[in-house]
């Protein structure tokens, strides 16, 4: 489902003396449907960078990244947008939303984007929010004023609203209490059970052991010059 081949990444900082930083070389990995793979390595090893390249958020300098057959490295903006709508979900560590939009709409949005009707989308969003212990009194409020842990859970609910065949999870259990951590891990297990290919970054070793089938240490792809 997700296949990374010979991928390298370099940042060129034009306004800082044209410094170039090689952060990754020859990265390769493969994730099958129903499998969850953890990216590991010390801070700066390129875990988030690789994840962002798979999502098309960072440009790879070379190599190929195939998600459901589409090479993200060479795909057009339009192809990547369509891939993100239907196939590839991403739960980042940050919640980015239009201010003043109610939480329920924020979570339902990925479903509306693929043409699901409003009631069905809201029902699914409400179900996820309940599961993640976001009290119903908050659903009509914008999540911009919520606590860090609540925002994290809104982000997760949004990422799981549509059943993406491929999922990228950046620290999904960070800043969660044990109860909600367990809910998130069960959501991940459910997604695996329905055949989703998942790549995750987990600093929490127990969580990693619980849901991940394999680990890939990115330090072997690092160039040693990363900041």
């Amino acid at each position, binding site marked *: 489902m997700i296949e990374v081949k010979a991928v390298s990444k370099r940042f*060129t900082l034009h306004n800082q003396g044209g410094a170039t930083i090689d952060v990754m070389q020859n990265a390769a990995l493969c994730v099958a449907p129903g499998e969850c793979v953890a990216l590991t390595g010390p801070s700066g090893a390129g875990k988030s960078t690789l994840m962002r390249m798979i999502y098309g958020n960072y440009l790879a300098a070379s190599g190929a990244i195939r998600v459901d057959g589409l090479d993200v490295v060479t795909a057009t903006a339009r192809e990547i947008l*369509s891939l993100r709508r239907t196939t590839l979900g991403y739960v980042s560590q940050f919640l980015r939303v239009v201010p003043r939009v109610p939480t329920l709409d924020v979570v339902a949005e990925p479903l509306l984007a693929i043409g699901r009707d409003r009631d069905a989308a809201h029902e699914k969003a409400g179900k996820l929010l309940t599961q993640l212990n976001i009290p119903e009194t908050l659903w009509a409020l914008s999540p911009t004023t919520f606590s860090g842990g609540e925002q994290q859970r809104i982000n997760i609910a949004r990422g799981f609203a549509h059943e993406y065949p491929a999922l990228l999870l950046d620290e999904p259990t960070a800043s969660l209490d044990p109860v909600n951590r367990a809910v998130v891990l069960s959501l991940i297990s459910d997604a695996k059970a329905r055949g989703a290919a998942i790549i995750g970054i987990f600093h929490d070793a127990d969580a990693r052991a619980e849901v991940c089938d394999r680990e890939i240490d990115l330090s072997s792809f690092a160039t040693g010059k990363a900041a």
Partner: protein
Amino acid sequence: MTQDEVTPLLSVRNVQKSYGAIVGCTKVGFDLYPGEVMGIVGESGSGKTTLLNCLSGHLTPDQGQVIFDTRADGPRDTVAMSEPERRMLARTDWAFVHQHARDGLRMNVSAGGNVGERLMAVGARHYGDIRDKATDWLERVEIDTARIDDRPSTFSGGMQQRLQIARNLVTGPRLVFMDEPTGGLDVSVQARLLDLLRGLVRDMGLSAVIVTHDLAVVRLLADRLMVMKDGNVVETGLTDQVLDDPQAAYTQLLVSSVLQV
């Protein structure tokens, strides 16, 4: 997939416009597909408004083609069209939201009249229907329908901007050009307008070209981004990719210059 067979709604090829020796914009080309929103950013004088005016028929480019997929005859170059044909397209298929609402509204005609006028321009004649549609659109842009007979000159800036949007969208255009749609508005009003625009784009399947210098606005509204400097396109790509991993020196400068709130 069949998506490659979809005709772009707008194909821009090598568009160039100079003012005497001064280059407005040069060698601009891109395809915009149905349902897509493209942002154009750059500092003042970068040529973004000149480009928008060339695309929307307000200015005639010196060179290049602006091909629009018309309902009746398929793709046609709007630069080579006759003026009446282009005006008809502007009334039926395009909308233009100006930065200053007063440029896009008739300030001495009632709010309902402003919306109704666009309908009459495309042939609506039944007063009751026009009034109903105007009322419906005022509700959609969250203007109190009790104000339907008031002139926009009595409205606040944010209300005027929302009225301008209602006036533009009432005829069901397929392509919306926006020049700094949230410029000069309070941030609280901006947020509401952004949400309104996003909902309209999604529900009506609109395509839009949005010119702005506000990177936060394009991040939330635009799927794709084009960065201009001195009349040239310096970078294009997915909005989040251009903002998070900018390649060109100028884009890096632009992104790193934004103040963090």
